């Protein structure tokens, strides 16, 4: 589903973020990417979202070379990918309902679909009572659950999560990871970056370890070891 083909990313000043990275992610996989800060984990995800371009190599989403898409096709690609971030990145002036509805509106979904799907997805993440709350009125764990709801409401083919538990306590971390597992069980491919050893060990899924912009280990059923 995702294929990195000898991807390098060098920022001005010869700062190497990725060096000759190649790996593939199959549909339905749950892949964790681990590594120290600056290892290149977030850069990998930025490449998938077409937020950044590789200096060399190609990134494919199915058979499409992401960085050969023209500007108008990029939103269509992003609608097939749900994304969750460490800092939640909710729209601060929109309620929980509106944050989720915005993603559906951007994908051209009808009002009827939005009216029926948003309450349903809020129920799924256990926040139906926070429907009309603004992000500032919610805790970190609640915000992250809204962000997940937003990411999955369009039933994406791929869910990418960049350090989603980085700002959460152990209880919320556990809950969030359980949600990711469920999402993966219904067939959505998940790529997760994290620092959290217990998360990786509890998942028992594929682990890609990165160091200084390179893939140094790729274990099918890995544990956290840096």
């Amino acid at each position, binding site marked *: 589903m995702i294929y990195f083909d000898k991807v390098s990313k060098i920022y001005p000043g010869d700062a190497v973020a990725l060096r000759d990275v190649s790996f593939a992610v199959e549909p339905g996989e749950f892949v964790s990417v681990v590594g120290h800060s600056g290892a290149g984990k977030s850069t990998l995800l930025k490449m998938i979202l077409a*937020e950044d371009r590789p200096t060399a190599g190609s990134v494919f989403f199915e058979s499409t070379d992401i960085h050969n898409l023209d500007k108008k096709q990029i939103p269509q690609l992003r609608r097939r990918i749900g994304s969750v971030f460490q800092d939640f990145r909710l729209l601060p*002036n929109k309620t929980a309902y509106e944050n989720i509805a915005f993603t559906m*509106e951007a994908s*051209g979904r009808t009002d009827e679909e939005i009216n029926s799907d948003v309450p349903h997805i809020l129920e799924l993440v256990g926040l139906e009572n926070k429907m009309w709350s603004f992000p500032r009125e919610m805790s970190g764990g609640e915000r992250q659950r809204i962000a997940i709801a937003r990411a999955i409401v369009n039933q994406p083919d791929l869910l990418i999560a960049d350090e989603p538990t980085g700002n959460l306590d152990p209880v919320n971390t556990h809950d969030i990871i359980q949600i990711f597992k469920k999402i993966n069980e219904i067939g959505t491919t998940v790529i997760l970056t994290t620092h959290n050893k217990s998360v990786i060990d509890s998942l028992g899924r594929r682990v890609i370890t990165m160091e200084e912009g390179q893939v140094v280990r790729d274990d099918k059923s890995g544990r956290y070891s840096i």
Partner: protein
Amino acid sequence: MLWTHVRRIVKSGLVNFWRNKVVAIASVFVITVTLFVIGGLIMASAFLNASLNEIQAKVDVSVTFNPDVAEADVLAVKQSLETQPGVTAVTYTSREDELKNFRELHKDNSLLIQSLDELGNPFGARLSVRAADPSHYEAIATFLEGKNDESGALVAPIDKITFKKDLVDRLIGLIDATRKVGLAVSVVLIAMSVLVTFNTISLAIYISREEISVMRLVGAGDNYVRGPFMVEGLVAGILSAFIAMILLYPAVIWVKDATASVYGGVTLVSYYLSNFAQIFLILLGSGMILGTVSSYLAIRKYIKI
């Protein structure tokens, strides 16, 4: 779908405007200042034109005939003057009226009145010629001096042509310079206000740059990201036009009162009232364009992601 899209963009813009009150107030404030400057310049231009016209109306070419010229000859000259290009009015004052005016003017000077009694009526009839534009006076004076008249018949009965060439030339220069300076000042003021507005709206959108990047990352297209910001700009522009129009009225009254001793002051208020719709439409149009175009330009660099 297009209608749904537009409806969602408009709704989102209105909701954002309401929820980002501080930013909205700042935008409305700067656009109002710009529109007030534009409105003020429209009024200043009307005031300037009225003042110049008033001064212009005080200038004319005066033709005094010899006392022995028959009234019919004077009226013939009057008729031929009226056919001249640029002449707007020719006023005839008879010998008797001239005498009466002179007596009235110098009624306290008994010596002068006494000598006038002894002398009889020394005055000739007079024609006052007004032109549409001060630049025409020279041609009128030249015409009267017979230079443009092949027959030369016109020259003989005229005693004196009073044409203050220096004054007229200075007036033409003054009007010309005032208009040029006025235009330059207007351009500079409007440019400055537009820049300040653009910078404020850029700052407002800069505050939302994270929000814009999130919208892009969840798959919103350019128009869907840009649209609500442009609607916010549009609403700010419309509100500002109303506020600027309301603020102009007390300003006009103040200028009227301050200049009442010079111009009687009525012109400006009546100009504001009689051109209310026109001025409002100019401010409304400027406000809407300023708000939406500033938002459009300011958001460009943030939707590249």
